[in-house]
């Protein structure tokens, strides 16, 4: 069949092949009949298919995860398909997830926080120094460490909001200062001998999972609820979208930027404490390896579900990144540099992919970018994904042969193929000439 998305008719004919889907189309059209504000579910410009949600553009990371599973199952089946492996992935990702959640808030507000890794190290060093050298109680040490994180955030906020330094520079400087503090405080040695009660905070419980996983998920839940479902979350995103416009809409943008920095410092400190508790030994650089993965996860997460920073996407991204690295490590690929390479590639590719898609081309798109001729079309045909947002079919009306609202079972009768009649029939009859 000729494939021509420009005319809705041909598409409709294609769709008509499947009764189920046809009914969905019709449902969608019926609901959009009065032109009034419509929710995306009933939006003709979007596909009415539920399957659209499974489109790789929406949840590409999940496909990546499936691909990783497929790859590693074939490559290293005996180590990959074990609970031990995935347990350790989940346990390791808990800390990364906490750090990433702390990072979502400032990024949503439109400021960078490059100091989260250094804050993690500094909080971990502070807590363990208080516990080991000063013999403080666990609760007090943790409280001071978390307060320290919030203080770091407040100082960052002061420099960004009051002194008006670019957040990138301010937090970069803060990061350096904090690592100096951590090296000084720890004497550049590993701090060992943390008390049992502190280590027990993150001990394993059900099936070898650690408590830190629960804490991470709890934080994720709070972050999700606040960012997606409260006015405050809306103000964060509005500030991040356009700070001056948000200010003119009556939002105290300075306060929200400050709050975002303090939250990220505080949450980074939580991640630092969990780090100290989970690994039992703390160094001045303990938190550093979490910086790039946290950014990678948040940016990768922003390409999922919605086109903005979101918690659910970040959780998925963390899971996928950690699994990918874990598999590579288990497969014995040069262990030293593979992790950095993987995170770097994932960050650049994911963000590049999403911003490339967002780009509006001046003229016609290249053939591989066009929905009707590119690879998406082939995949979409096989999977039955919905049509693109461009070239929406015109809404059917009663005259259309394939849609008649009076007929409840319109899709049952399809006009029999009309044979093309001989063209000569329509030509004027020749006269006179023959008599020659």
């Amino acid at each position, binding site marked *: 069949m000729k494939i021509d998305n420009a005319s809705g008719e041909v598409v409709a004919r294609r769709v008509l092949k499947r009764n189920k889907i046809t009914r969905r189309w019709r449902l969608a059209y019926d609901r959009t009949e009065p*032109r*009034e*504000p419509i929710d995306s579910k009933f939006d003709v410009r*979007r596909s009415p298919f539920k399957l659209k949600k499974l489109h790789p553009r929406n949840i590409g990371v999940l496909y990546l995860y499936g691909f990783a599973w497929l790859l590693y199952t074939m490559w290293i089946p005996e180590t990959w398909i074990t609970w031990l492996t995935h347990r350790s992935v989940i346990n390791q990702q808990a800390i990364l997830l906490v750090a990433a959640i702390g990072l979502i808030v400032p990024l949503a507000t439109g400021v960078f926080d490059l100091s989260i890794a250094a804050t993690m190290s500094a909080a971990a060093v502070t807590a363990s120094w208080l516990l080991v050298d000063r013999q403080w109680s666990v609760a007090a040490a943790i409280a001071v460490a978390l307060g320290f994180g919030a203080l770091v955030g407040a100082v960052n906020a002061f420099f960004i909001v009051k002194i008006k330094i670019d957040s990138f520079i301010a937090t970069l400087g803060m990061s350096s200062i904090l690592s100096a503090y951590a090296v000084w405080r720890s004497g550049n040695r590993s701090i060992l001998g943390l008390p049992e009660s502190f280590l027990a905070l993150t001990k394993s419980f059900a099936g070898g999972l650690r408590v830190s996983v629960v804490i991470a998920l709890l934080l994720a839940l709070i972050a999700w609820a606040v960012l997606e479902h409260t006015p405050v979350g*809306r103000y964060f995103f509005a500030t991040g979208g*356009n700070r*001056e416009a*948000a200010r003119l*809409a009556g*939002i105290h943008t300075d306060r929200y930027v400050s709050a975002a920095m303090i939250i990220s410092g505080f949450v980074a400190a939580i991640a630092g404490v969990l780090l100290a508790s989970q690994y039992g030994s703390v160094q001045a650089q303990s938190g550093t390896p979490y910086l790039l993965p946290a950014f990678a996860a948040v940016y990768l997460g922003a390409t999922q579900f919605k086109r903005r920073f979101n918690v659910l996407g970040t959780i998925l991204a963390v899971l996928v990144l950690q699994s990918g690295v874990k598999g590579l490590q288990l497969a014995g690929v040069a262990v030293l540099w593979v992790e950095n390479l993987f995170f770097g590639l994932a960050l650049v590719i994911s963000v590049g992919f999403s911003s490339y898609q967002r780009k509006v081309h001046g003229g016609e798109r290249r053939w591989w970018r066009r929905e009707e001729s590119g690879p998406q079309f082939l995949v979409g045909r096989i999977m039955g994904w919905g049509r693109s947002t461009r070239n929406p079919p015109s809404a059917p009306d009663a005259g259309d042969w394939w849609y008649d609202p009076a007929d409840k079972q319109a899709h049952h009768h399809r006009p029999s193929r009309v044979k093309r009649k001989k063209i000569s029939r329509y030509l004027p009859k020749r006269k006179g000439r023959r008599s020659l």
Partner: protein
Amino acid sequence: MTRQSVPVLDIRNLSKTYPGQVALAEASFQVMPGEVHALIGQNGSGKSTLIKTIAGYVKADHGSQTFMNGNAIDLWHPTQQQRSRIRIVHQDLGLVPTLSAIENLALGRGFDTDRSGRIRWRRETRRCQELLLAFGLAPDVRSPVATLSAAERTAIAIVRALQDWDDSQPGLLVLDEPTASLNSDEVSALFREVHQLAKRGAGIIFVSHVLSEVLGLANTVTVLRDGRTVLRNEPVANHSQSTLVRAMVGENVTTQRVQTRRQTGAYALEVMNLSGAVLRDVSFKVRAGEVVGFAGLVGSGREEIGNSVFGATPRFAGKVLVKKQKVFAHPHDAIRSGMALVPADRKRLGLIPSQRLEDHIPLPHLGPLRSGLRVNLRRLRADSSRWAQTLQVEPPLLRRRLEKFSGGNQQKAVLARWLRTAPQVLILDEPTQGVDIGAKSAIYSTIDKFAAEGGAVVVVSPDAEELVRLCDRVLVIRGGMIGCELSGHNLTNSRIVQESLGATSLRAGTRVVERIVPFSVITNQSSPSEVTE
């Protein structure tokens, strides 16, 4: 004047159509060598489109013919030689603020280097200083341009345009409002330079809003109105300020005015002694149910007034009362006390382009949509859908990002957002900028309805017609102060333009323009104008 010779630039039937509007319809005029040719017209008359076409930023429609020194020239693709014969000083000057004067001069032409590739700084500095001395200026040519005064920057831009000028063949110099930030001495220095250049055989196009300058400097004048050429190559000697204003505004323009509303309400907005970056001591009052307009030229302080009253930009002095309650100068406080601002720069200040329509409309006033701590999404959607319907945002897709809506529908969405907050005072800064005609009338009727229901409206607009259509009275701002008030039968298109232009030479209270060339006719146009209460 050498009328017999070949024109430097001969434009015939130049049109430019943007989607939905004709910016320029068959403009044609000739610039002779040794002639200063003034190009005037109101905002939106097609002046800037014409200049952009000459500069090659905009491609003219098919069918236009342009000749330079008798040879056909394609302004969109000029040859290197032709390009070097057209020099343009744009209104914003086009200097790089972080570079020094020397570096700015060298941007197009390159540095003078010795054999090793080192820049000959000493020679460059001397050259730059000599060029600027012709203007009677001796700025520090090594410090960044941003630190210099406005006059020095203008001089640098003009010097840059004129450097390596070749007298062997007549060229064209376009000055787009060069005098906007100059004082009288600097203006006369500029005029002297321009005359010298004209004597050397160059054709000069001079764009200005200040009619006295036009009458003083130019030999011929071309007037544009709504994209059409009203006066073409007219000798300036035949004209006075009043005839030029009449040509710019048009005589038969009668905008449909809605019937005057009765202004019986109490004062909803009182502004006392407001001062800002340009504004000086501005006071006015607006009654409930009244629409008050603000007119004025670019740079007169008109742009500042909406933001300043709302508290978006800092107020240096003065206070603002809404319903007799003092309002602190922060948008949050202004919104709480019942003000709403639709800013002029929609893309940058009015909306968040990445936001969805359903998130955009309720943003300033989420309180009633809350249930407990969280936002009730169902109510949010219902509410924003109602407002989108009320203002006929097309297409009414709540999940669509604002950047994908057309300009008119974006503006409707912004208006919906602010009407939803049930304001006492609605401040509209250029409400129909970049808005198509259909959306324009919808916005007008919304404003009318809002005022009829007892809201106070302040409309700030560069478009005189719009003010006549919407307002009960119009305050004209000149040099940061309220120049006069127009209402009733005085409130006409031409009066607004006349009053805005009238005292532009008193811009910011600093400048009195002297007439350089004596042949212009001096007419006293300033009519006795009512003083603001």
